[in-house]
């Protein structure tokens, strides 16, 4: 079965929990394990937080999250039209952060990669950033 949803919301921090809860409710249709759904929630929280803090620098903006699934394969795309990332490779290094004054841990992309099967980032300075994350549910059997 295939399904799709699209969320569009203001880039304000109170929407971080809204986004991860909405995404997890959508993928609940696939009957994932608690651990799988928590992995997705964490990854979505990281990507949306990045858009709000870094993309828009806590200024006004819109974040778009789309979710699709095809059988057990899920995909989450998080898009902002913020400042973009100058050096994607650098930004994905663990502990790298451009905002140490906010005590950012620099673990955002590392968490996305740890909790999802695939993460890809497209970004253009002053245009915005698109993060695509994929995860296949039900890889592990219940009895494990």
């Amino acid at each position, binding site marked *: 079965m295939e399904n799709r949803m699209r969320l569009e919301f203001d880039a304000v*921090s*109170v929407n*971080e*929990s809204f986004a*991860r809860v909405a995404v997890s409710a959508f993928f609940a249709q696939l009957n994932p394990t608690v*651990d799988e759904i*928590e992995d997705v*929630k*964490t990854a979505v*929280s*990281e990507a949306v*937080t990045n858009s*709000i*803090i870094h993309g828009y620098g806590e200024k006004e903006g819109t974040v778009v999250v789309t979710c699709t699934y095809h059988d057990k394969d899920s995909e989450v795309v998080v898009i902002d039209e913020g400042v973009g990332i100058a050096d994607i490779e650098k930004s994905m290094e663990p502990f790298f952060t451009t905002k140490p004054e*906010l*005590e*950012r*841990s*620099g*673990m*955002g992309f*590392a*968490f996305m990669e*740890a*909790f999802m099967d695939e993460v890809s980032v497209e970004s253009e300075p002053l245009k915005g950033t698109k993060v695509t994350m994929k995860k296949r549910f039900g890889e592990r059997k219940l009895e494990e």
Partner: protein
Amino acid sequence: MRQSYQCKNGQLIVEMPKEIDHHCAKELREDIDRMIEISHVRVLVFDFSQTEFMDSSGIGVLIGRCRNFGYSGGSVQAVHLNDRVKKIFMVSGLSKLIPIGTEQERAGGRVDGE
């Protein structure tokens, strides 16, 4: 958000919120720092019994508090982690920085050996 704190036997026990993300990070950070400042304790205990969600923003808060607290010679530990928070501790490597305490240590109130 209202944080709950308990100070006894030279320990400051901070009850961590249900969800720890960027949205609550600033206030949480300021709250904990204020409590550390006024309580003059040597042991800081993060109690995660209410916590159901934490992302990397929480890691930033914990590392920051640990660093500040370490300067003054204090020790830090975390208790009552559910499986999810434990996973976050492991994946981030935070478990190497903040020891995960046991129920007994917390209940006995003697982690600092007083």
